[in-house]
């Protein structure tokens, strides 16, 4: 829609002015010149962003090039040594990176699937659905430390709910050490993470699913499409924006499951439960600020990369559908 101010011009004049503006129009006051007071309004926000976001980020880049221990006046610039060390000379970092990628993969897949299935079952706004949605959403409002402690006691091999329940139904042979088993520990924490956040992601999917016109399903049914075909041809492509949000958010959550890991595994967590955020924290605690800053930058870059890749892949798969 176009709006003309000061009355309509003759068509010929209008054409002329598009082709070559007359000299007096060039002199006319630019519409972008506004009172300077307007430019003062964003200043507080800009100042806050500069002080609390831009400066610390720039400082992290600077610290990453030093061997600063976090408190000493003396430090040396070490170039890219910290970055090189992270990838070639620190098995704890590469172990945490591998753990984090495994954790992310498991959580993203299971959390997306579980939340989508829940959302599909509870899309209707019936009383029962609303009640169940609230129930599934409930864990999200708990603090992660509380969740960590609840699950730590569930997983306890001596008095925990998991082994007690298995024992009570005669499945003693399935009783395990859970967090004590290095090969499984990460997956048990991933299960906790899915329980914790699936309800939250379900709400995003419900909103996406409710936006799909019912007529499409009715038409598909008339055309003889089965449930699976309806899902692949209608639901999955049309729920793409919600899926993109869920996957991106879940990815970032998985990288930042710091408080959950620390709550469940203690500080420092053992190597089998160490992820990037806890490793960075350990490096800070170990008075290696320069190295921790370098790890933080790698961490940031990795989240950006993985999120970008996911969006590309998701867009491609949903376009193909």
């Amino acid at each position, binding site marked *: 829609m176009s709006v003309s101010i000061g009355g309509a011009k003759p068509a010929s004049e209008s054409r002329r002015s598009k082709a070559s503006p007359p000299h007096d129009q060039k002199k006319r006051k*630019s519409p*972008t*010149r*506004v*009172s*300077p007071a307007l*430019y003062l309004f964003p200043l507080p926000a*800009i*100042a806050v962003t*500069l*002080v609390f976001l*831009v*400066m*610390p980020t*720039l*400082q992290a880049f*600077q*610290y990453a090039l*030093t061997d*600063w*221990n*976090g*408190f*000493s*006046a*003396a*430090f040396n610039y070490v170039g890219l040594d910290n970055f090189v060390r992270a990838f070639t000379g*620190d*098995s*704890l970092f590469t172990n945490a990176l591998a753990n984090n990628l495994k954790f992310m993969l498991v959580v993203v897949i299971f959390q997306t699937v579980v939340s989508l299935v829940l959302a599909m079952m509870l899309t209707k706004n019936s009383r029962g659905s609303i009640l169940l949605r609230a129930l599934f959403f409930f864990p999200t409002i708990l603090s992660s430390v509380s969740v960590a402690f609840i699950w*730590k006691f569930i*997983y*306890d*091999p*001596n*008095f*925990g709910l998991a082994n007690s329940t298995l024992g009570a139904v005669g499945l003693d042979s399935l009783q*395990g*050490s*859970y*967090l*004590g*088993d*290095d090969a499984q520990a990460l997956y048990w924490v991933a299960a906790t993470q899915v329980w914790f956040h699936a309800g939250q992601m379900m709400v995003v999917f419900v909103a996406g699913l409710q936006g799909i016109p019912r007529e499409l399903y009715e038409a598909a049914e008339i055309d003889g499409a089965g449930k699976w075909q309806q899902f692949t041809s209608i639901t999955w492509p049309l729920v793409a924006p919600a899926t993109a949000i869920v996957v991106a958010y879940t990815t970032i959550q998985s990288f930042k499951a710091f408080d959950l890991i*620390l709550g469940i*595994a*203690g*500080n*420092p*967590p*053992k*190597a089998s439960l160490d992820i990037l955020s806890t490793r960075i*924290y*350990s490096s*800070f*605690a*170990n*008075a290696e*600020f*320069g190295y921790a800053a370098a790890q933080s930058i790698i961490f940031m870059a990795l989240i950006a990369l993985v999120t970008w890749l996911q969006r590309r892949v998701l867009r491609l798969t949903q376009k193909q559908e």
Partner: protein
Amino acid sequence: MDHISRRQALGLFGALGMGAAVASCAGPGGTAPAAPNSVAAPATGEITGEVSFAHWRGEDKEVFDELIKRFTSANSGVSLTQNISTSNDYNAQGLQKLRGASIGDAFASFRGSQFSNFVEAGLYTNLTDSPAAAQYEPDLLAAGKSEDAQFGLPYQVVFPMPLINLDIFDRAGADIAPKDWDGFLGTCEALKSAGVVPISWPGGDVGNGGQLFNCMIINVAPADDMGTQIEQGTLKLTDDWYIGMLRQYQQLIPYLQPNSTGTAVEPAQSLFSRGDAAMLATGSYHLAAVRDLGAEFPMELIFPNTSTGGTSKYEGVYNATFILGVNADSDNQPAAMEWVNFLSDPENAGYYANETAQHVAVAGVEYTNEDLQKLSPWLEKKTALAPRFQFQNLDVRNAVEASATAVIAGTDPEQAAAEAQQIVDERV
């Protein structure tokens, strides 16, 4: 200037951004701390104003509240508050929290890497000639010294050795003072035959599970400063003596509760306090917690002596920790120092010790708590300062202790040692 163009506005924001960039390019670090021997004593002056006491002993809060009440009634111009963090947070962030002294005019620190970092950061004042320092057993002050200057006063004396249930030991006829490793295994076997879990070990908790390491290593290592030497690379975890110690850990597996590597400290305490386990492999610092859980049986300490044949060098291990100090950045050092003096008074230290069931390094304290009385002979025994705190690098410490946990989880000792040594090598 009536108006500002978009270009001018962008220029202004650009200048702000450049300013921020330049400001953020200021180098890290602060003022260089003075050499240890030239650090000043706390300032003297009127005992007044607000004092913050920073520490991690949440379980001692009520006892400190009572001591604060007594302190402030004796010093009417002072108000004193406790700033308590969890031990994990205090270990990780204590230095950053205390710098600048927005909290922690008086504070405590852990022995080992935290104390060293605090000294290096210039956080301590010099307490060498303070009246408080004169109240302590001289032998127990070493943990608070650096280059002969007394920066901190190690307040607590704890024994990181397994607590034992004497009733179960009596019933099983188990030896409470085994002289060597075979003797200790014999004790475990007797307990197991009596139908109880011999050792409750919180293998799922790095901090508490690692305490057993103190006992296991002290008599088999070739040097008393084995932790320092491991960190420096002069002793290797792949050496025979270390792998031998891991094999001794392996021998403990039948005597630990099932799935011990997944057991957190609270369930481990519960097993012990309910009488389902005969030993709790943490330390005397859990006496009060175990009593709070309802344990009424008599308790003692046992030293899992790993020496084999011949005489052993040490009869146990102890740790001097909760190292009290006065913050060099504090603007109320006189009152903070007075609080440290107050805590170091034998009567007040005795109150703290008896109420929290922990021995203290202050001389002349009368222990009225029955558990402390029972354990007091350990103060006279030939005990070694707990070696796990020799490690200055926490990654190294965790890797070394994780090798023992890995063995209990089923890893071959040689493989566990090699994996841990790799992490040490990366940090030497």
